[in-house]
């Protein structure tokens, strides 16, 4: 019974929190840029407003265009349900390990990219093409991070990796550091943040993610935006849980530990969100053809992380 309650809480926690985290990033960025900025709950209002508006669908669109927002959102949501946030004791956790998690985000991307191409406009195709370029380098990088984490901890399941890190048998490993760096680079790319993509750009030619969802409006757009927010929160939670799991409730924990876990999770999420805002304010966006260098770098870091394990063993 209690397990089921935890699972239900987990299902709605990330989705409910996601707009707030996004609002927080925007607020910190605004302050850093010398603006007052909107309230952090503004994204909730935006989503609600979009839901009230009628959806405009192009004549040339097929059923896929209308289904894609729902599929995209539920795929990202499903991924968010399966990662540990405040506790590792999740009934559904064995349904997917990190590999499956990467692939679930791939499902969302597949549908978004197809939806971008469905109406048959130049910008939609442009966005889809660039998004798939980014993904075809970011996804292997993420798998290499999984590879090195599984070599260190002996598991690809996030809850097992966390248990291993918490058990203290992992020292300061070069591999873990490289894997963290690669994961952060992947997270930046997957969420379309600067320097890969600018979520608040108004120039169509520089858009990647926004270009794909350009034709969306009303509730469809709301779902696409919400999927993006959940994905950002998911990655923050994943980085926080894998590389700084302290405070997370373990199996068999009581109510106080759960509450503590929740508090720590919130604190970590907002701290990482603030760090993201600082990072984004500090650097400029890259040219499209520099992506390959950036993400190829992430892929190599992931590969190095696995190989360094043996180098450090042999020395």
């Amino acid at each position, binding site marked *: 019974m209690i397990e089921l309650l935890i699972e239900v809480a987990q299902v709605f926690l990330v989705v409910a929190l996601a707009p707030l985290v996004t609002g927080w990033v925007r607020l910190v960025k605004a302050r850093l840029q010398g603006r007052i900025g909107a309230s952090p709950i503004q994204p909730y209002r935006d989503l*609600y407003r*979009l*839901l*009230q*508006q*009628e*959806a*405009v*669908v*192009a*004549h*040339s669109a*097929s*059923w896929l265009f209308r289904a894609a927002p*729902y*599929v995209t959102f*539920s795929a990202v949501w*499903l991924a968010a349900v399966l990662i540990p946030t405040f506790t590792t004791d999740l009934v559904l956790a*064995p*349904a997917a390990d*990190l*590999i*499956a998690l990467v*692939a679930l985000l*791939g*499902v969302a991307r*597949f549908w978004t990219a*197809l939806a971008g*191409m*469905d*109406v*048959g*406009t*130049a910008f939609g*195709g442009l966005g*889809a*093409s660039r998004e*798939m*370029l980014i*993904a075809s*380098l970011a*996804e*292997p990088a993420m*798998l*290499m991070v999984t590879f090195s984490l599984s070599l260190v901890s002996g*598991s*690809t*399941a996030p809850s097992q990796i966390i248990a291993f890190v918490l058990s203290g048998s992992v020292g300061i490993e070069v591999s873990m550091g490289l894997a963290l760096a690669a994961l952060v680079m992947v997270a930046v790319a997957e969420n379309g943040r600067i320097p890969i993509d600018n979520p608040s750009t108004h120039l*169509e030619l520089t858009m990647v993610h926004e270009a794909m969802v*350009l*034709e969306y409006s*009303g*509730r469809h757009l*709301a779902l696409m935006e919400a999927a993006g927010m959940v994905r950002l929160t998911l990655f923050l939670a994943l980085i926080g849980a894998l590389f700084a799991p302290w405070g997370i409730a373990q199996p068999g924990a009581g109510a106080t530990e759960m509450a503590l876990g929740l508090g720590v999770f919130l604190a970590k999420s907002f701290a990482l969100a603030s760090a993201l805002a600082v990072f984004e304010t500090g650097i400029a966006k890259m040219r*499209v*053809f520099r992506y390959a260098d950036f993400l190829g770098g992430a*892929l190599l870091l992931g*590969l190095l992380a696995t*190989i360094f394990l*043996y180098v450090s063993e042999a020395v």
Partner: protein
Amino acid sequence: MLIAASLAALVLLAVVGVVAGGREITHRLVHAGCAVASIALLIGGLTHLGAGPGGSPAIVLPLGLPWMAAHFRLDNLSALFMVVVDLAAAAASIYGIGYCRHLPQVRRVTPFFPLFLFGMNAVLLADDAFMFLVSWEFMSLASWLMVLSDHKSAENRHAAVIYLVMAAFGTFCLLTSFGLMAGAGGAYTFAAMRQAELAAVPAFLVVLMAVLGAGSKAGLVPLHVWLPLAHPAAPSHVSALMSGVMTKVALYGLIRILFDLHGEVPWEWGAALMVIGGVSAVLGVLYALFQDDLKRLLAYSTVENVGVAVIGLGLGIAFKDAGEPALAALALVGGLYHIVNHSIFKTLLFLAAGAVISATGERRLSGLGGLLNRMPWTGTAALIGAAAISALPPLNGFVSEWLILQALFKGPGLPHWAMKFGVPVVGAMLALAGALAATCFVRAYGIVFLGRPRSLAAAQADLHPTPASMRWTMAVLALLCILLGALPVTVTDALSAVVQPMTGMHFAVSADLGWPWLSPVSSTRGSYSGTMLVMVGTALFAIAVVLAHGLGTRRVRRADAWDCGHREDIPETQYTGQSFSQPLRRVFGGSVFLARETVEMPEPGERSPARLSVRMIDPVWVGLYDPIVRAINFIADRVNRMQFLTVRGYLLMMFSTLVFMLLVVAWRQQP
């Protein structure tokens, strides 16, 4: 009994096909007969698999050369491949009932189609090298004739020549491999080969020749060159079988030799196969990414998928040699699962391509578009196929990649340093190939089925409705993609029974957590459950729909596309296949394909259009085949002179040959 009757029926059908002539009904009847025979064979294979491990007793028939007999036997491995072959064969035959009406060259296809099916099944049932090779040639030549069915196009004739050369090369290599295993005594039955002890050099050569022979048929890089030419040249339902199934028969040959007949393959071969597989996977998908011909794109993607399966097989060899039968079983189950999956979704995609081609008469991506609105059945089935081949959960393609990745992640535990460092590299290649495959199929599907039509033929595709037999076949295959993904444990249990004799270990992939959870090594090692993902995902989808509709409005308005206010009615403003893959061409094309882009800009003030042209070079063809072709031509020119010798010259040559041979014999007989 059932199997023998079905095989005989296939041969009979071929005869009917020959006398069929121009009557449409006969062609349809032959295809329907093939469907019945394939379903019977499919049932035969499934019953054998269901009956548990163990093989049927060998059947000896007085076929072939007078002093030899033909041996047939069905064991779990051949039963599995029989299921793979005949499932796709049944689909292609039923599809063919409707499809052959649109086929102008149907009279040159119908006689050979049943023979092709017969050849593939006989390879699987053969229990001696002689029957194996004869059936193998049956399969090659029947498919070769169908590649040539549209012989008026020069491109197809070119493809057929290359296919014939490569098929001959492949059979030559397999013949050598079997010959070495049979030894000097010529023990050509498989039962005798299993007992044979091989010395070091022949053992090495057996594996090398098997890899070359089966690899050339399976399309492993660098022996893949014929495949993307020959597969698309045949009619689509034959292409589906060549790409989806004939490559699998080749892998069956490889598995049969490496895991059954030879038995003791050293880990270095596992490493070599993993590298070959990794290179095939990455190169295959890169080729596919830059194709404009829909069927050629699918053929190149076959090279990729065969590479993925071979990574699993190579890993299996390495684990087996290192004394880790459980992990070897895991890797093999992953590889076999991928073989099953690929036969289903590649058949589906080729059949969908056939439906597109018969509705529009267009194979180029640049002439298609907007077909999901005009061909909803084909479009939806192809969407499922594209998602499955992109390894997206909860479909079947993901499960096999997941299993292979799980096995790879244990690879660094192997005792050899080359493996410790090499396995992560192969893992990166596999991951890269998977991600690029998703890109490739977003591109292919998006350009063909989405957007606005790029030609009049594509815009009028709804004028040629797809026949029911074609639609239903695609629907069933799409459903199988979902089922094999959502119920992975059922499949892995069946596969571990197949793998058991090869690794000597019973291994249940779901042992630890029970039915719907795949937990290959142990429950703490990482697990996956397609079943749970489907259930929870559907629930979340329903909640998302209810929330979005409940909190907001359900109104929808149809309007013109917005496109940031740049309204353009001409479909040429859309992205094309070329422009979609341009960023990736900039990233990979320069180093792999030596791609060069040239832009011709008109002088300012001129009205002529600017042109962008791309030149790409096939590294394998230029680097490997061109020199070989040149060398053969060079030698042929020299040898040609011998045709014009005088009688004295010929006599001298015969004499010197005789002397040379006698010298060889004398030298061999020295103690």
